[in-house]
């Protein structure tokens, strides 16, 4: 019963047989904020794509809720997918649909809720991320930060138990980024769902204040892990230590 909600075992991932990350093992406990940290190009998005079943690992296994994602049949896969929501790095909102339609889409496809109810639910989700009143906007009519919020709202539309967010605050100005990080930290408290968040920014790590694994491109693996305050003092990996301390001075 006390099973981790996500568990990876010796996961090796890459493209065309060339590994980018090797032997990644970690587990995520239900209800926590789990942060995947690392410089750009180190494979954070790649890891995330594997965790949500969009790519097959070279070797190793992934368990979601104790079920293997790696060799799931289509029924088990559907079962797993129904428990997760994803906000992609670029938002990935459907450009031909309004925000409301974007958020309502999974509800329409997978539930038999009345249209009116779907509308209200979708509106509520948009309000939750601070986009009340933008129902009828198209994604192209929004700023980058707003698009990221909308993607978050869509990811939450089916009330998943795990939310995966790929760089939810990257590419935004510091003020908007901080607001978005605060929002996510707040949502985590309110919703009690498990968050898996990819980021490359130290400020986000401290705002979100979750358990961190830090990936590195050269060693193709996890170079440090723990709570942010612990990592601040942890000198066992010089690169991780330098990252935590140097960038802290700058910010």
């Amino acid at each position, binding site marked *: 019963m006390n099973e981790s909600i996500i568990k990876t075992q010796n996961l090796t991932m890459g493209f065309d047989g060339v590994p980018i990350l090797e032997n990644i093992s970690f587990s995520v406990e239900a209800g926590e904020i789990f942060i995947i940290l690392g410089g750009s190009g180190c494979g954070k998005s790649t890891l995330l794509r594997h965790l949500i079943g969009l790519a097959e690992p070279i070797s190793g296994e992934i368990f979601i809720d104790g079920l293997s994602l790696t060799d799931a049949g289509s029924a088990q*896969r559907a079962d797993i997918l129904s428990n997760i929501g994803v906000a992609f790095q670029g938002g990935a909102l459907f*450009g031909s649909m309004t925000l409301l339609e974007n958020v309502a889409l999974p509800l329409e496809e997978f539930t038999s809720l009345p249209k009116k109810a779907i509308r209200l639910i979708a509106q509520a989700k948009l309000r939750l991320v601070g986009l009340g009143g933008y129902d009828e906007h198209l994604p192209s009519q929004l700023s980058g930060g707003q698009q990221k919020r909308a993607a978050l709202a869509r990811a939450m539309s*089916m009330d998943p138990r795990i939310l995966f967010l790929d760089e939810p605050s990257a590419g935004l100005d510091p003020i908007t980024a901080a607001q978005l990080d605060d929002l996510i930290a707040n949502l985590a408290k309110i919703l009690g769902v498990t968050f898996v968040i990819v980021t490359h920014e130290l400020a986000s790590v401290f705002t979100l204040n979750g358990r961190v694994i830090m990936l590195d491109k050269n060693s193709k693996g996890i170079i440090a892990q723990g709570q942010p305050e612990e990592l601040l003092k942890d000198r066992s990996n010089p690169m991780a230590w330098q990252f935590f301390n140097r960038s802290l001075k700058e910010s």
Partner: protein
Amino acid sequence: MGYAKSKSGVSLAKMRISYDKDALRIVLRGRLDNYRAAPVWRKVLKLLAKRHTKPIHIDASGLEYADGSGVALLAYFKEYGQKNDLEVKIENLSQNISSLLDSYTENPPVEAVKQPESLNLIERIGQSSMALAGDAVEQIIFLGRLTLATAKTIFTPRRFRAGDFFRMCELTGANAIGIIALLGFLFGLIMAFSSAMPLRQFGVEVYVADLVAIALARVLGPFITAIIVAGRTGSAFAAELGTMKINNELDALKVMNLDPAVFLVLPRVAATLLMTPLLAIITNVAGLIGSGLVILSLGYSLVTYTSHVQNIISMTDISIGLFKALVFGATIGAVGCFRGMQTKSGAGGVGVATTRAVVTAIIMLVILEGIFSVMLHYLKI
């Protein structure tokens, strides 16, 4: 600042090499910057291309200044030493340059990311045949998915994206009427005119009507229409789906457990399948009007023209043409979506996908036309 001084040519970069019995001695002097380091670099490259067994001692006391190219030169010496297990000593290096050099050597060159090796001719031929075979396999898989999606949708019609379908019909059909009518008209006109001239020598120019009518209905009408649909709509599908793929929208569908084949491909293929025959009718009618004008201008009456057309064309001819258009339409839609979903990331990705959509579609049209001709010949219809 530094450049201004160096440009004026105050001090050149110089290197002197000498061999002792216990070391290879190098003396560096002057300013090693981007402007002056070139000759020194050339010498060094030549020097280190050989294998040395003696330690290398570099005297940098005369080195006034070094920028990126100068520091890289020193780092190159050091790495040479590490690689060949040779002692490389750099003496009397100024504090500035030394700390710059440290930052270079602190970050060792990362292991090169594996890149595909360049291939020789035979390997390249092999690779492109494999790619072609792989492409064929992918097409078959895609076709399988599409069939599955069609089956799924027939059993749960609620799943069909009707809104999308109508939008696509408008795009494919309604919006193309103008260009289709114009091209059909001009085509009929040109065909009639260019065949009327030779036929006139035999006094049988009135048979132009028969010629144009039968050619349009059975072959050219559907074919021209299909080529226009491939250029207008097939490419648009590829671009649209390609952009969606790059924006991760296809991934977003997949993690919602929505099948892109049902969600995106089916409404589009249904639209081209349905619209291409309708457009072919327009092409045919417009073409007949065009050729009619030529006949009238040659002094024949409208009744003569229409009776010729009516006599020569049967319902079978028209049905054959429309059936071809239907198959062409489905093919174009499917190819467009297929190429779109194959899009590779990067700025050029969507462009490549669009081009490939049109080229593949046209090749498929020609192949299909060939198959139809042979089949009709043997079926004698």
